[in-house]
């Protein structure tokens, strides 16, 4: 009997092998979409299927939320990529050979992220996240320009530092679990570790969590460990920027939360909440101010991702069913909106032949429909009603206010600062005298519109079934 989680992990890897063998890039793009569609279907099957806990794989309410978002955005990104990437061949930025490699790596990356999400073994989770990271490093350097190589190098150095620290933290968790669970595989199995958390060595657990926080925090993009993130977003292909912001940051956050659940189970160990609150707030406010100085549109939204990841880490640091619910909702909304924005940025970069904000003036004159869609997406991400991001941000702020009124001022301040910067930049790009070339846009607008519709629907009406599902996931988080 095949389980849905096996399909979610195996289908992308099989597809990667097949894609390596397909020479034509047009067929490759279609196969890429088909494979992502199969994975998405398996992800949906998982939602309605049974929950199970095995030695190496776990399927519970918590990771199904992540898997669903992962497979959905993977599918829409593949759709976008299929219509977008042929333009890169025409302009000579990519060769058919590198595009074949790109499609295979895209699937391998999706498979690795899904592996990290379903793994019940903390070593396996680490392997999945590391593989996904290394693949994105190669993808960021795909254009082979000096800037792309610089970005990939910096990403690689910082990511490997993060990976190493996370691995050391994983070893420490194993050591902490050894007295309770004995030697071997059980002391690396997440569900057993969580159940035995109360009997784990608190001193080692403290040290382990610090290493894991710094290690996986680097991958989440928490300040001051975020330096790789803007460069990697700006220099890689746009579909990869969408997947980086929308998915890979989430998977790293997922890993961190799994360990938070273990540490929270041992009262004698440190309380992860306050540390996460501080790191989240620092990232949020720092990134909000950094938004003002950006001249590259992809860098702008990369900093906006740091801001939103900071807000999520803050919400999960607050803890409790309501804040966790708000954090999960915000994560879903941010993934959908931010990847949608990167699709839009891809359109703009094709229309204008540049990513510099100074070169993108007057979009409303040259590409009115694109300008409207892009403006709506930026409204959504900056937290304006009636979009879903507003709902989740509002929920985070109100739950914080109900518990710690003064603390709520800080995230509210950071969000306002970021809001101002985004609207300023939006005005620069939409209005003014058009400059530079105005090419026709070939890329499909369906994925972007779809994401916007989903976020809009979530902002207006959240189905009770969805609320109940997220609530159960939030309860698991404790």
């Amino acid at each position, binding site marked *: 009997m095949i389980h849905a989680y096996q399909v979610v992990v195996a289908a992308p890897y099989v597809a990667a092998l097949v894609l390596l063998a397909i020479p034509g890039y047009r067929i490759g793009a279609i196969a890429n979409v088909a494979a992502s569609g199969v994975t998405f279907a398996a992800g949906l099957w998982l939602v309605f299927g049974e929950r199970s806990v095995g030695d190496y794989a776990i399927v519970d309410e918590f990771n199904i939320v992540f898997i669903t978002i992962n497979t959905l955005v993977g599918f829409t990104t593949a759709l976008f990529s299929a219509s977008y990437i042929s333009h890169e061949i025409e302009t000579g930025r990519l060769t058919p050979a590198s595009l074949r490699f790109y499609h295979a790596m895209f699937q391998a990356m999706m498979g690795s992220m899904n592996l990290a999400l379903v793994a019940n073994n903390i070593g396996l989770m680490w392997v999945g996240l590391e593989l996904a990271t290394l693949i994105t490093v190669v993808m960021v350097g795909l254009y082979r320009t000096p*800037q792309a190589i610089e970005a990939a190098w910096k990403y690689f150095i910082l990511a490997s530092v993060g990976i190493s620290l996370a691995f050391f933290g994983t070893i420490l968790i194993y050591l902490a679990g050894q007295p309770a669970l004995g030697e071997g595989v059980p002391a690396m199995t997440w569900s057993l570790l969580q159940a035995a958390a109360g009997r784990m060595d608190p001193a080692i657990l403290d040290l382990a969590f610090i290493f894991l926080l710094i290690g996986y925090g680097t991958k989440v993009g928490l300040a001051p460990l975020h330096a790789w993130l803007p460069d990697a977003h700006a220099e890689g292909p746009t579909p990869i920027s969408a997947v980086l912001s929308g998915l890979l940051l989430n998977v790293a956050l997922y890993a961190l939360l799994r360990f938070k659940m273990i540490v929270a189970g041992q009262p004698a160990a440190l309380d992860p909440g306050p540390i996460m609150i501080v790191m989240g707030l620092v990232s949020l406010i720092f990134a909000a101010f950094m938004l003002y100085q950006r001249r590259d549109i992809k860098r702008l939204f990369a900093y906006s991702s740091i801001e939103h990841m900071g807000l999520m880490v803050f919400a999960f640091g607050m803890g409790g069913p309501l804040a966790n619910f708000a954090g999960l909702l915000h994560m879903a909304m941010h993934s959908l909106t931010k990847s949608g924005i990167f699709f839009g940025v891809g359109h703009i970069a094709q229309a204008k032949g540049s990513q510099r904000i100074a070169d993108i003036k007057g979009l409303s004159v040259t590409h009115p429909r694109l300008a409207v869609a892009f403006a709506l997406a930026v409204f959504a991400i900056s937290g304006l009603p009636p979009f879903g991001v507003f709902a989740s941000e509002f929920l985070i702020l109100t739950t914080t206010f109900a518990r710690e009124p003064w603390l709520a001022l800080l995230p509210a301040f950071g969000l306002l600062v970021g809001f101002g910067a985004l609207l300023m930049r939006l005005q620069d790009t939409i209005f003014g005298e058009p400059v530079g070339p105005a090419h026709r846009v070939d890329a499909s607008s369906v994925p972007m519109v779809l994401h916007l519709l989903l976020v809009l629907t979530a902002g207006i009406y959240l189905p009770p079934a969805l609320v109940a599902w997220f609530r159960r996931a939030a309860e698991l988080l404790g």
Partner: protein
Amino acid sequence: MSQVYDISHLLAGVMLVTSFALLYQQRIAAVLNAFAAQSITLALAVAWAAWSENRPDLFITALIAFSLKGVVIPVALHRTVARLGIHREVEKVVGVGAALMVGLALTALAQALVVKIAQGPASQAREELALALAIILMGFLMMIVRRNAVTQIVGFMSMENGLILAATGARGMPLVVEISVAFSVLIALFVFAVFVFRIRERFDTIDIEALDRMRGDRR
């Protein structure tokens, strides 16, 4: 029993000494030799753990460490350096004296962090963890204070040596993880190789400083 720990501590200590040696070398060839020495010591330490704790699966890890990181990678990097004709001298951000002082401080930090948890029955195994942590931190230090891409690669792999030492010190840790570490070294090598050649292709140098001039926002 204590002799078992004496020997594994001795080997871990030798690895730490080679970490310091990595920091004060003046020529890239010497850095590569020091790294090879560290990897071979690691292989010995892992093999010792495999024999003394009767865990034959660890011999595979030892073999990978010896063949790949002790022989293949140093030889390949020696060749790359010779063929590319890059600077034979190590380019430093921080002088040798200062780097060694920081290295000493990091070692003390690692001891202080781990001593706190090194109590109870498994305390001797955890002391090895302190040495491993010191080696990991020294690997970071090397990545920060050395500018050339090849020396940064060596710093990274030295860090991985520390990680494998730590994984070996954690008794009974499943082989799954050790294979993955070896695997990650392979991927790392692949990625590094791609970069070294691409950087060479673009700049005729593998000096990281040349890359810093290409920062996107300063275009």
